[in-house]
């Protein structure tokens, strides 16, 4: 007998049929744009690897370009796993080291200025990340703190005031926007479309930078829960090393999980909470499945609703404020 609610609700009964539907849709949409292939940024993570594999099936590997765009804060295995993703899909890659661009626009300097205002001893050789408190363990509003590691191994943690928080985010957003700029360069050069790599959780909850990784011509997996992306990864033959890599933001110089930066829970639990919100499953039923209390699940539900309000701006196209024409 199957339980009423649990991970099985997200299980794709026929992954091959799902792949077929997605690749058909990719061909249809790219054809509609009168382009002839796809460009995507490869991070070595599960989402971009799956999109690369789908694109190779949809357009043929020769019509897909993977762009590798590491920078000084990227983790040590980003480049190697990105190359592995490309070779497993059989696609061509180009390496674009973006540190010089980010240096030139002041990405690191502007970010570190803000860190230094909060932690005055912060300077060269330090590592840092920004983190959120757990939504499960506390009812408090989720306010960002900076966690910094000094060269001699001391750890500091301070809440980020508004101005500093905004400057840190604005500066680090250069990373996603620089990458997207380069993806569009190659897409324009080759007459390809840019393929976005958000999954449903990221797309729904606004886990992307507007006009950065949120920008794309086609988003092939934005309807799939992250758990389902893993299921497709297996069906597509994505290497085990990529499938077993914990999701990371790969944006700050200290390792940062997606739960620390954005989501309330690990992705598999977030998937189930998002599904529950959209299908009217009550918190009590979800709690039993996730090993949480109903009160904790209610807090996650509220966090989901709050992020949807915030992400409306991220999704919005520029708006006209007056309809029609104006004249005498």
């Amino acid at each position, binding site marked *: 007998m199957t339980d009423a609610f649990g991970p099985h609700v997200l299980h794709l009964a026929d992954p091959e049929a799902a792949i077929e539907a997605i690749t058909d849709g990719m061909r249809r949409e790219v054809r509609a744009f009168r382009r002839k292939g796809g460009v995507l940024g490869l991070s070595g993570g599960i989402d971009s690897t799956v999109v690369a594999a789908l694109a190779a099936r949809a357009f043929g590997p020769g019509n897909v370009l993977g762009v590798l765009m590491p920078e000084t804060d990227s983790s040590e295995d980003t480049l190697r796993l990105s190359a592995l993703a490309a070779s497993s899909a059989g696609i061509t890659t180009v390496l674009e080291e973006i540190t010089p661009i980010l240096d030139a626009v002041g990405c690191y300097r502007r970010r570190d200025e803000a860190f230094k205002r909060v932690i005055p001893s912060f300077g060269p050789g330090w590592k840092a990340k920004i983190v959120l408190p757990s939504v499960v363990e506390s*009812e*408090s*509003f989720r*306010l960002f703190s900076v966690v910094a590691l000094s060269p001699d191994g001391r750890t500091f943690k301070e809440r*980020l*005031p508004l101005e500093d928080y905004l400057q840190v985010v604005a500066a680090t957003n250069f990373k996603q926007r620089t990458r997207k700029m380069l993806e569009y360069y190659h897409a324009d050069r080759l007459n390809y479309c840019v393929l976005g790599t958000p999954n449903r959780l990221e797309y729904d909850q606004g886990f992307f930078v507007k006009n950065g990784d949120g920008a794309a011509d086609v988003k092939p997996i934005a309807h799939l829960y992250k758990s389902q992306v893993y299921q497709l990864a297996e069906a597509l033959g994505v290497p085990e090393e990529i499938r077993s890599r914990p999701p990371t933001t790969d944006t700050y110089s200290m390792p940062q999980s997606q739960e620390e930066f954005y989501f309330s829970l690990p992705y598999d639990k977030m998937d189930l909470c998002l599904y529950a919100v959209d299908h009217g499953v009550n918190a009590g039923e979800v709690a039993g499945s996730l090993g949480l209390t109903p009160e904790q699940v209610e807090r996650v539900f509220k966090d989901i609703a709050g992020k949807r309000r915030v992400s409306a701006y991220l999704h919005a196209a520029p708006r006209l404020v007056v309809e029609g024409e104006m004249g005498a």
Partner: protein
Amino acid sequence: MPDLTTIDRDVRQFLADNFILDNGGADLGADESLTQAGVLDSMGVLELIMFVEQRFGVSIPDEDTLPENLDSVARIVAYIGRRLAQGA
């Protein structure tokens, strides 16, 4: 020390100025949830904290950043009044 009426007026004015509320924020119910009304998000809470610290000299520690203290006009006013009475 400002009285609760003054605090209430200043909080409403802050909300109206910062979150583009119609009618100067006068339509906002005292007990209405600011998060559910879409007025406050996590960034808005940071703005509110900065306002409270600068306008009233009340610093808000992490453990006080709770909905019961900050998620309605009445709760914000009561919190500020309480902290001022304690000599914050």
